[in-house]
């Protein structure tokens, strides 16, 4: 089953880390990537630019409305995603718990809608 891991970070957390801590966080992500790749489950991974670069689009009555910023104004914003292909939810949750951001922010695991070919 394919799952998407959505990583919701509070960007100020990373900014307020010392340089060593940032380096450790980066190394931990590298290690995670390596483990997921070795397990053969990693399908995709994307890191997003900061949320202040986001533009939200809504179409109402045929009119397109644009808003500066992410969909929801919260402290934690979507920072990146992984797509993994696992046997079941337990395996996906096990990997999600190892994502460095899970220790200070939240990561969400959702099954991907599989459309018939």
């Amino acid at each position, binding site marked *: 089953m394919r799952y998407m891991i959505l990583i919701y970070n509070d960007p100020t957390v990373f900014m307020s880390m010392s340089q060593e801590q940032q380096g450790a966080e980066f190394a931990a992500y590298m290690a995670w990537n390596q483990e997921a790749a070795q397990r053969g489950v990693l399908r995709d991974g994307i890191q997003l630019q900061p949320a202040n670069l986001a533009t939200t689009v809504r179409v109402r009555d045929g009119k397109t409305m644009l808003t500066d910023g992410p969909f929801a104004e919260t402290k934690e914003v979507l920072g990146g995603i992984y797509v993994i292909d696992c046997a079941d*939810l*337990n395996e996906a949750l096990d990997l999600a718990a190892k994502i460095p951001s899970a220790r200070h922010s939240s990561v969400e695991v959702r*099954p991907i809608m599989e459309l*018939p070919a």
Partner: protein
Amino acid sequence: MNTMHDVIAETFRLESRKVIAVLLSTLCDVELAEDALQDALVIALQRWKIDGIPRNPGAWIMTTARRKVIDRLRSAGALERNLPAIEAASAALADDEDGASDLQIPDERLKLIFTCCHPALGQEAQVGLTLQTLGGLTTPEIARAFLVPEPTMAQRLVRAKRKIRDAGIPYEVPASSEIPARLDAVLTVLYLIFNAGYAASEGDALIRHDLCDEAIRLARVLNALLTDVPGLTEDTEALGLLALMLLHHARRDARLGTVGDLIPLEEQERARWRHDEIAEGVAILDRALALQRRGPYQIQAAISALHAQAAQAEDTDWAQILVLYGALYDLHPTPIVALNRAVALAMQAGPEAGLTALDDPVFSELQSYYLYHAARADLLRRCGRTDAARQAYETALRFTDNAAEQAYLRRRIQP
């Protein structure tokens, strides 16, 4: 009236809990398994009336339900997507038929318990699912037990079953390294079921024996499975919970007065306690304690055992109970545990000491909890401060909707 219809339905009910657990091991779709079982029941009602109940009803139900699973998957459209499930069901059906009528149904209920109590499901859904798939309770029964409208409960159950299927919640006993953490959720669910029966918080019935019985039955199944399944071992907290529930439930006949009023522990007629059940609870607790891994359920069971073993209320070993509440507070520093500890302190060191303890800021959270005010009122009464006691009882009255609890408090105000 014990008609053939009832006998068939009862046989079916007993066997079908095991069958659904087995069906799910190739299916991972609770709704589909239940629909197929329902189909099998309809056929059983027709066939068993004519042919009699088969020698191995479980095997009969299983093969019939498997055929119905295949039928339903075939007619559901999306044949291509369902093909793997159809193949799995067909292969399992062929295996069953090789064994013919001597088929032994493996006990897959442990997997089912862990699936129903998966932390990816909401806790209310875990409780409902456990009662439905393992306890065989109907949706209206579960809705009534948890005081929610039937459509709400029905929707909650359907959502949970779909999440199991669509999010890929596996049907398996977790790896032994994960058992302690996952078992926690299972024990919480069983305890919630028991408490829903033991202290129905609204309406006229204070105890719902059926829910207490069901929680105890499931805890027995869980403990037996943990012992029997290779690679798993007895769990001290699972034993502790079973002991706790047995010890509490043994007092059921003495807890309610003739008009359904609540009788406090010290006033209960101890001859009406079920002493065989107390003995069983104490024996199970002793087995857990011997394994020397203490935990909150065992401590609570030990407290309950001390009450149960006192021949008279005056004989209660409050010094020991106070120590145990202290140990419980170390593990679970909640205001409720602190409240119980304060009451034990009052029994050990006098009501003044208890009242002083109740002034602790930890109780600011309990200002709208009726038991806090009821406990304070009792201590004030024992100190002879009648007016302050009456006021506290009246405050307590404002915070409970349970008719039996209200009657108890009114009795205290006007003796």
